[in-house]
């Protein structure tokens, strides 16, 4: 496994990203943008589903916010993969990173599990989602401080 991560790190793309002046920070910024779109819309959508906010119908909230959340997730996943390959061995061994990945996988699985349910059956799921995604965000930020 370590060899696999070392091989990823040795790719031309990873080497290019390690050396780039602007591309790496821009990918970094795009990763934050993806997270902002994802977590921002998740919070707004879930507050509506739980019933804390009341503006618009729950269905409208989902129609409006879910596509943005999915777009944010895709941006975060793609840019996250690019950031990962730059220091793959280090990140893979990092406890915060490992917990973050587990949280993201759980959150995606949890979302897919509930995606077809009507809003009135989503209150508990919305509360769970409101905890897992920000928790993943916190673990992500902590990678830099461990």
């Amino acid at each position, binding site marked *: 496994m370590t060899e696999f991560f070392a091989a990823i790190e040795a790719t031309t793309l990873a080497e290019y*990203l*390690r050396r780039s002046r602007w591309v790496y920070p821009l990918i*970094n910024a795009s990763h934050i943008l993806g997270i902002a779109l994802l977590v921002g819309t998740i919070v707004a959508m879930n507050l509506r589903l739980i019933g*804390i906010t009341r503006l618009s119908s729950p269905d409208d909230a989902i129609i409006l916010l879910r596509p943005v959340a999915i777009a944010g997730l895709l941006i975060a996943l793609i840019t996250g993969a690019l950031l990962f390959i730059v220091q793959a061995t280090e990140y893979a061994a990092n406890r915060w990173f490992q917990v973050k990945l587990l949280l993201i996988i759980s959150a995606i699985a949890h979302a897919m599990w509930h995606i077809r349910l009507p809003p009135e059956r989503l209150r508990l799921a919305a509360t769970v989602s409101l905890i897992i995604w920000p928790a993943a965000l916190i673990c992500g*930020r902590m990678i830099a401080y461990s």
Partner: protein
Amino acid sequence: MHLIKYAVLSLLLAVVALPALAHHGWRWTDSGDFELTGVIADARLGNPHGIVTITANGETWTAEVGQPWRNERAGLTDAMFATGTELTILGERSADPAQLVVKAEAIIIAGETYLLYPERM
């Protein structure tokens, strides 16, 4: 209902209140002048941080050097950070004396001074 409201609010506050730990910039350093001379044990250059491990007086230090563009501008190449090279780091050390970490403002190798942060010198 109120319980959920407070739970959500406290979660959001917890995110905001996370302590701003040292990492980027100079806020985590002691803003003094620090000089460290030793031998390179390991170098990991490139984004997001250039990290050089230095053995000095039996201690193992971590020196943060520049990103690739900053090292290049100073006239430094990756090859100059070869293991076993003696060098002097001029910079600021961590404000926490227990941490053997220094952020380089300039690097001296073989009598030649390379300025990473000319505006700070």
